[in-house]
């Protein structure tokens, strides 16, 4: 059995890579994929703790997170398509309609 801290370090690294992706990239689709990576690292943390605490709650939570992620991706990609139709780009630096 792999010790618990190793799983936690691994998920922390994946989460950090997702954060760096969101902060450094300007392509809206890649930012979205980085958010998916962060969601996945948190999912793995929950399954890890569920396994180490002899519980099923973490796996049920992962199931619910995946449903939320699926709905979020559907709406988010629809937003990206709508913005691309309007502005002909998906560079997030050029999306500043709300800034006034």
């Amino acid at each position, binding site marked *: 059995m792999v010790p618990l801290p190793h799983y936690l370090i691994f998920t922390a690294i994946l989460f950090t890579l997702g954060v760096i992706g969101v902060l450094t990239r300007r392509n809206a689709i890649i930012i979205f994929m980085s958010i998916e990576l962060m969601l996945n690292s948190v999912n793995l943390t929950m399954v890890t703790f569920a396994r180490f605490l*002899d519980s*099923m709650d973490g796996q049920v939570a992962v199931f619910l997170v995946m449903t939320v992620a699926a709905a979020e991706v559907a709406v988010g990609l629809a937003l990206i398509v709508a913005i691309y139709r309007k502005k002909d780009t998906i*560079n997030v630096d050029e999306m500043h309609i709300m800034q006034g």
Partner: protein
Amino acid sequence: METVLQYFSINPVFYIFATLAVIFALMMVTSENPVYSAIFLVLTFFCLSVIYLTLEAEFVAVIQVLVYTGAIMVLFVFVIMLLNLGRDAQLTEYAGPMKYLSILLGFAILIQIGLATKVTFSIGAKGAYPIERVNEMGNTEAIARELFSQYLYPFEIASILLLLGMIGAIVISKKRPD
């Protein structure tokens, strides 16, 4: 079935696939073309699915492949193809000090999480599903028992959320005359 799971619980499997997942995630974040990013993210998700198997969470591992790589990533690739992003794949990215500041900030978060895991926290009470019992009844059955008894309302709310997501996606991406 148990022999397969024991095979996946061997230590090297975790370390090999964790390393692969980190490498693929790094390539996902750094590759310029969004199609390559999507493919590296699919590979990362496959590695994560193997890591779920090392935790003996077979249902989550299968759902990971079916939902994430089968549905969500196909949606991503579909949108990339639909928008024909190949031609402006090289978007003007951040350059200079802001980029390095962002990377530094990311590592600050990593260090913070690392320090948080170093703090000794008391392990909570053990749950009702030790691994022997789960293997006896089956992982899927154990999840289903919890999901349809204790977590019934969240489950119903999730179904409404999916419906709303579907309607929202249709309404938002509809072409309107302007």
